[in-house]
């Protein structure tokens, strides 16, 4: 690997709090050195970083990448292209594919396909239960040996309390954790929007806000009796965040993430039957959006994930209740998060921490750092450059963004994976 110097950039390492102008030296895919006054080795490629930010590549905890089974929506190759354009260099893939990732061979298949992209560390989750059906536990030991990063049933909640108890207990044996889609399925069944005035006006079947909090409350109780680690994905309500905050204060192994739609949009985005804003969990009232913003700032939320859910036009051009839920998120993860920084709700390092070092730590990865010896997964960012999200013009296959038309500030100019330029 040819050496590389990125010179004169604003170096940002959220884990150490580093925020200084300097150079960063890459050698054999790792960060050799960083700081001011670095020498420039003979033959090293030079990238001028003056006026730009250099940050660790993003670590995305949650994305559906279409493969295997839904290649018409997204492939690993197209997801990798979108990830690189969005500054994401590590991505955890959901296992509720077709077939689901409940077999070591399938986990290895996804790993190999990820490696073949050359631009992305693709880490598949293993299924928490066989076929993601919520009944019998999958083979956590064998799946982990094959490379599964943790266990989840993806978009499906692990509904049975006994099954969840067993999953949390059993995962401990392998030092792993279980990711839950926190929504009580019997209460949410058939719902298309958050229950309330808007859903009533639109004549849409509602999902009560409490469907999230009650699942979170149950799983916290199960974490308490098993000593297991539960991670709640895309948390979106104030009530659930209050429960998670209390569980953390109690010292339980409870973590959570959210996704950009839940702190940038509220339920009014589905007005006029906009199916591109139909998500799971559904968009929430403004008070809950504000609660998510507060929980980002106070540390209750451990990570921001893209929650990328590729859907094609035929999945979305349907009456609202029949349309598929889910939004594309890879290309907008960084930009929408930076809107919180530009809006003054989050500091720049705190925001980047939620996208890099904290999710990396949760997964036990050396990524997400701008530090000597760390993998040279890097993003060169123009923090002030504006752009507009437009469906039809996003990188990758999936164009189903809930942010269509949204003006953002902060543009990725270059992405490096292990020292190799993969975007820009």
């Amino acid at each position: 690997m040819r050496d590389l110097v990125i010179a004169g950039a604003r170096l940002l390492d959220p884990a150490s709090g580093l925020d200084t102008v300097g150079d960063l030296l890459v050698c054999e895919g790792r960060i050799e050195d960083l700081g001011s006054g670095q020498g420039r080795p003979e033959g090293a490629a030079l990238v001028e970083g003056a006026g730009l930010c250099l940050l660790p590549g993003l670590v995305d905890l949650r994305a559906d990448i279409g493969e295997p089974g839904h290649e018409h929506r997204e492939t690993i190759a197209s997801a990798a292209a979108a990830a690189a354009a969005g500054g994401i260099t590590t991505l955890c893939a959901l296992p509720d594919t077709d077939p689901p990732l409940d077999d070591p061979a399938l986990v290895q298949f996804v790993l190999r396909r990820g490696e073949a992209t050359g631009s992305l560390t693709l880490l598949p989750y293993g299924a928490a239960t066989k076929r993601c059906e919520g009944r019998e536990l999958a083979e956590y030991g064998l799946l982990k040996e094959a490379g599964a990063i943790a266990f989840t049933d993806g978009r499906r909640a692990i509904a049975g309390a006994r099954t969840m108890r067993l999953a949390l207990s059993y995962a401990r044996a392998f030092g792993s954790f279980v990711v839950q889609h926190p929504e009580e399925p019997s209460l949410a069944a058939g719902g298309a929007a958050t229950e309330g005035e808007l859903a009533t006006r639109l004549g849409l079947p509602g999902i009560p806000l409490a469907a999230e909090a009650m699942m979170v409350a149950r799983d916290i109780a199960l974490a308490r009796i098993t000593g297991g680690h539960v991670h709640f994905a895309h948390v979106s309500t104030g009530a659930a965040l209050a429960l998670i905050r209390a569980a953390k204060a109690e010292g339980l192994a409870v973590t959570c993430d959210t996704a950009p739609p839940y702190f940038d949009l509220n339920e009014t985005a589905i007005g006029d039957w906009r199916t591109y804003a139909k998500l799971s969990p559904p968009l929430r009232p403004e008070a809950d959006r504000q609660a998510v913003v507060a929980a980002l700032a106070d540390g209750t939320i451990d990570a921001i994930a893209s929650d990328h859910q590729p859907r094609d036009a035929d999945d979305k051009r349907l009456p609202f209740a029949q349309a598929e839920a889910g939004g594309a998120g890879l290309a907008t993860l960084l930009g929408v998060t930076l809107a919180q920084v530009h809006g003054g709700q989050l500091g720049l390092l705190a925001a980047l921490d939620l996208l890099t070092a904290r999710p990396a730590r949760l997964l036990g990865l050396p990524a997400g750092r701008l530090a000597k010896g760390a993998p040279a997964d890097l993003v060169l960012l123009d923090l002030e450059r504006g752009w507009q999200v437009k469906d039809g013009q996003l990188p990758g296959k999936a164009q189903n963004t809930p942010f269509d038309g949204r003006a953002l500030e902060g543009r990725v100019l270059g992405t490096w994976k292990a020292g190799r330029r993969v975007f820009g």
Partner: protein
Amino acid sequence: MSFSFPILPGGHLLAIEGLEPPHIGALLDLAESYALLNRSGKTQRDLLRGRTLINLFFEDSTRTRTSFELAGKRLGADVINMSVSTSSVNKGETLLDTAATLNAMHCDLLVVRHAQSGAPALLSQKVSASVINAGDGTHEHPTQALLDALTIRRRKGRLEGLVVAICGDVLHSRVARSNIHLLTAMNARVRVVGPPTLIPAEAARLGVEVFHDMRAGLAGADVVMMLRLQKERMTGGLVPSSREFFRFFGLDREKLAVARPDAIVMHPGPMNRGVEIESSIADDPERSVIGEQVEMGVACRMAVLDVLARDLRRNA
């Protein structure tokens, strides 16, 4: 009758919500004139001559489809009924495939009924025709609200200040939603009455008073509007049985006695006699205006077609 402002902005009738009181008043005035015309036995067959009206029904409805068909024919339109069976939907033909077919047929006015909320709005974005919502899921049924309002106005002389009790399965009722929007816009006092399992979330935010006791809800009412209880609500567990429902939320003489002595009784049809309404009340000419509702239905649909056809001519 001529109007100085567009009665149906956008060239479609997709919902009552969003219509302003002057628009509603103008539609009702025009409908009233058609009611008189219909009673006189005259027709006005030149208004929609050469226009094609397609009744596109994804759900069965003899009453509403026939009413639109009659309204279109009385105004001279070529009327075609298309019943799209669920089987062809299951074959994979989407709503938008249907829209492409209709565009190829050069349809001018498209009347749509669909089991999904928002389906007519989706179609309206994809077809060149003016779309009239003839009932979409649990969202709205705007012409039903117009015909109900016209019936009330003819009997009571006004809408403002009247106490209207809408009773029964409000949760699943597009008729209730459209009536709530129309009647509250016209400053009637609207109540919804039913068991909590059949009242939508945050109903009070629509500007209505919520009652779970039928006698309290009917006390002093000028208008009692009963809704149809679908049989599948029983199997869905929202009410335990039809006999329990009738006992507490069905309209009988005893409950009706607390309404005003001159209160009228309405029902959008088809009725479940003995479930939400006692037969003797449904058939009582002193109380029931159910027959008049059907008559006003044709007049209101003529008015809506008339107004939309004016836009067609303007845009031609």
